[in-house]
């Protein structure tokens, strides 16, 4: 609320009165009803919004939902890979790393399921009852970095140092895929604006980068373990599927 100054020649006594009025009004403004203001861009004026303004949020993006559904599928494979460790190797460093990956990815799967369920979305991109089909009836496409069936079979068949090496290279490929998914998400117009999803994707990106770093160092250290690339059959999923 503002007081319009009357245009009257300013006599000292009157000026004083106007000041007093302005001061009093200022006080009233301080204790008056709160205002809701939406600033403009730098240098632009602000808008005062009506008192009954309610929050609005950017509309949810289909890319957000697909990111979460896809990442659940993606994480699930990591958990499946780590489940092999106990029976396939006795390497303590790998066991410890695997436990960490398994627990953090399982936690994150639960988070993503909550996010989707709370939004009334299916936790899975496949057609109900038809895991090999997507919602449009097309064959499911694997997420970036996921190991192909052949790669998974090779991993299941390996033991000891060979398993260690396949696991590390496979998991690096797998994690790099997650980075691609996060990158794609933030490069999709309108996506990544949900606060929960933003925090999750940012954190997943930081964590997986760190784990890639760790696994790369473990691989470098394990120079005694050499698996020829022909045997490893660890090519990227896209190459395998094409």
């Amino acid at each position, binding site marked *: 609320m503002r007081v319009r100054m009357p245009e009257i020649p300013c006599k000292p006594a009157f000026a004083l009165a106007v000041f007093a009025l302005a001061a009093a009004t200022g006080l009233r403004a301080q204790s008056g009803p709160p*205002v809701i203001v939406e600033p403009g861009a730098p240098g632009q004026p602000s808008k005062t919004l009506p008192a009954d303004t309610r929050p609005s949020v950017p509309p949810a993006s289909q890319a957000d939902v697909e990111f979460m559904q896809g990442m659940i599928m993606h994480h699930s494979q990591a958990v499946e890979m780590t489940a092999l460790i106990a029976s396939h190797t006795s390497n303590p460093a790998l066991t410890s790393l695997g436990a960490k990956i398994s627990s953090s990815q399982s936690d994150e799967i639960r988070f993503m399921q909550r996010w989707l369920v709370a*939004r009334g979305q299916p936790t899975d991109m496949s057609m109900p009852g038809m895991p090999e089909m997507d919602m449009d009836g097309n064959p499911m496409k694997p997420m970036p970095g996921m190991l192909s069936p052949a790669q998974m079979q090779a991993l299941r068949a390996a033991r000891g140092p060979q398993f260690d090496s396949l696991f590390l290279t496979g998991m690096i490929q797998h994690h790099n895929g997650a980075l691609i998914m996060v990158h794609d998400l933030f490069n999709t117009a309108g996506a990544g604006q949900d606060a929960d999803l933003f925090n999750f994707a940012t954190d997943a990106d930081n964590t997986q980068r760190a784990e890639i770093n760790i696994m790369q160092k473990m691989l470098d250290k394990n120079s005694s373990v050499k698996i020829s690339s022909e045997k490893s059959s660890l090519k990227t999923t896209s190459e395998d599927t094409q």
Partner: protein
Amino acid sequence: MNTIRKAALYSAALTVLAVSAHSLAAQAAAPAPAPATKAPAAAPENPFAPTPAPPLPAGMTGSDTSDPRYTLKPGLYDAGEAAMGIKHLALLKKPDAFQINASTPDDPRVQKTLTQLGMPPGMKMPPAMQMVIAQLAFANSDFAFQGNHLFQGNFYGINIYDISNPAKTSLLTSLICPGGQGDVSVYGKLLFMSVEMPNGRLDCSAEGFAPPPAPKPGTPPSRTPPADPARFRGVRIFDISDIKNPKQVAAVQTCRGSHTHTLVLDPNDKDNVYVYVSGTSFVRPAEELAGCSGDAPDKDPNTALFRIEVIKVPLAHPDQAKVVSSPRVFIDPRTGALNGLNNGGAEHGDAKAKSEDTNQCHDITVYSAIGLAAGACSGNGILLDIKDPVNPKRVDAVNDPNYSYWHSASFSNDGSKVVFTDEWGGGLGARCRPNDPSKWGADAIFNLKDNKLSLQSYYKLPAAQGDTENCVAHNGSLIPIPGRDIEVQAWYQGGISIMDFTDPAKPFEIAYFDRGPIDPKMLVLGGDWSAYWYNGNIYGSEISRGLDIFELTPTKFLSQNEIDAAKAVKVAELNVQNQQKIMWPNKLVVAKAYVDQLTRSKALPETDLTAISDSIQQAEKSKLNKKSAAKLKTLADRLDSSSASVSDPADSKRVAALSAILKAPTA
């Protein structure tokens, strides 16, 4: 709580899960033994149920389950409360413009908001669930203070309150400007705000950015270039000359946005202020902001990782604020490698394996009076020399096997100690359960001498919390109690805990306030983000519930005189991460606080202290007449001569400070 509706929702959720038949997903979700839910044994796990804490690692201890704070009644606004030495004066709920505020899900406004959030129309949802949905988008965050104004940051904007009468605090202005986290600072007529999320816009409108049109069935979604000149991630500057009509005067873009920021004042430069920017989020593409690169440092020496940014703000022309340097604070000075620091290989729950490079600071506390800053930088705590604020130089770095994520820091007033916090679990997790180790997600107290940090002890909220309460060490400030190092600190849903760390090896709790969980069955994000002392009161920024106002009450750990002495300190502005040296007036109430402390520690004979107390009382009665002042002077001289018999260093300082006041007291 409407349990019927909730059950309905759960069964809807379970149905959704049951039809999710993808084999891998099924394997992965195959849970550990399901916690006590009422679902049939064969049903898939309820994703909203909390997971039980893993067993305590060998050699570790957990928190106290006999504490009354462990068993408080749940509720959003009617939760049980427990307090010691703190009186709750008021709770101001979040303004309606900042929350999905509804008593009934049938409210058309709620339906509208839920639709915007992507919820199918007609979906029934219990009130607690609405809170889940809205969790972070409207979360309250950090505080700044100036005169009678309190600025409360929020992921959706800033709320400005009039605190001239703290118990009757009232809302002045709601400033809508989404983009999270809304970390705030204030200096003169300028208000600063951090923005990091992709929905931040140069203007403050809440619409974010429109999603692309839905793809035709059977075709993949189009990836349109997202670079958008209207997007804003960085530090906003508002002019608050008119507190009811703030205007944006500048918006300084950065590659990773601003997760937090720190106001920095250069004692030798009155024309400018500086802002240190800590970015923890993704690096945006160069098409959106020229020069941004998220590559590894060996691929791109100009990577936006492994650095902080410094913004210079000319006070006469804040619109010309810009980034003036990007200090490589993690550099290895010998090799020049930008990634010169790592976390040392934590042995710790979430980061069990090997070492990991540190590429970001989370928060920086500057203490210009001693020319230093303490950076809490994900994998490390670092110490920066900031005598040249534009070019901070790292002088020390520490890591700790118990630390998961170095989050924030505070100096003791004399600069001889630093308290770091570990935000294990990111603040979204329950990390104060009985089985969560007391050294994880805790404060770490370091001695600081000759620019070297050395670990002395850990302090964690002593009371255990439930598995639906997000809880871990978070933001706090010093309370200006003379003669002691006291910090009030927020622990999310663990509430507020006040810690005495005068002896850095033996920190202990002297007061607390806590509420029960928001919800007993699922973790709903809430609790105190920050708890700060400002000019006589404690303010708590409650993420979901609103703004809490408290005052201290005397206990055996803290006397009324000590509280009054703290209230005698008045500051014109408070930005906690721009730490200012506390100066106590030479008032007799401050002297009385020292007398109480010396009585408590029995450092001087009781008769001497009683004599001082009596004389102070007489001096107060006589309004410090000549005779009473002379008497105090005599007692001060006697104190000086007996000070040699005091062995404890903290007591020696108290004796000296007491003597100084008695020699020249003010009214």
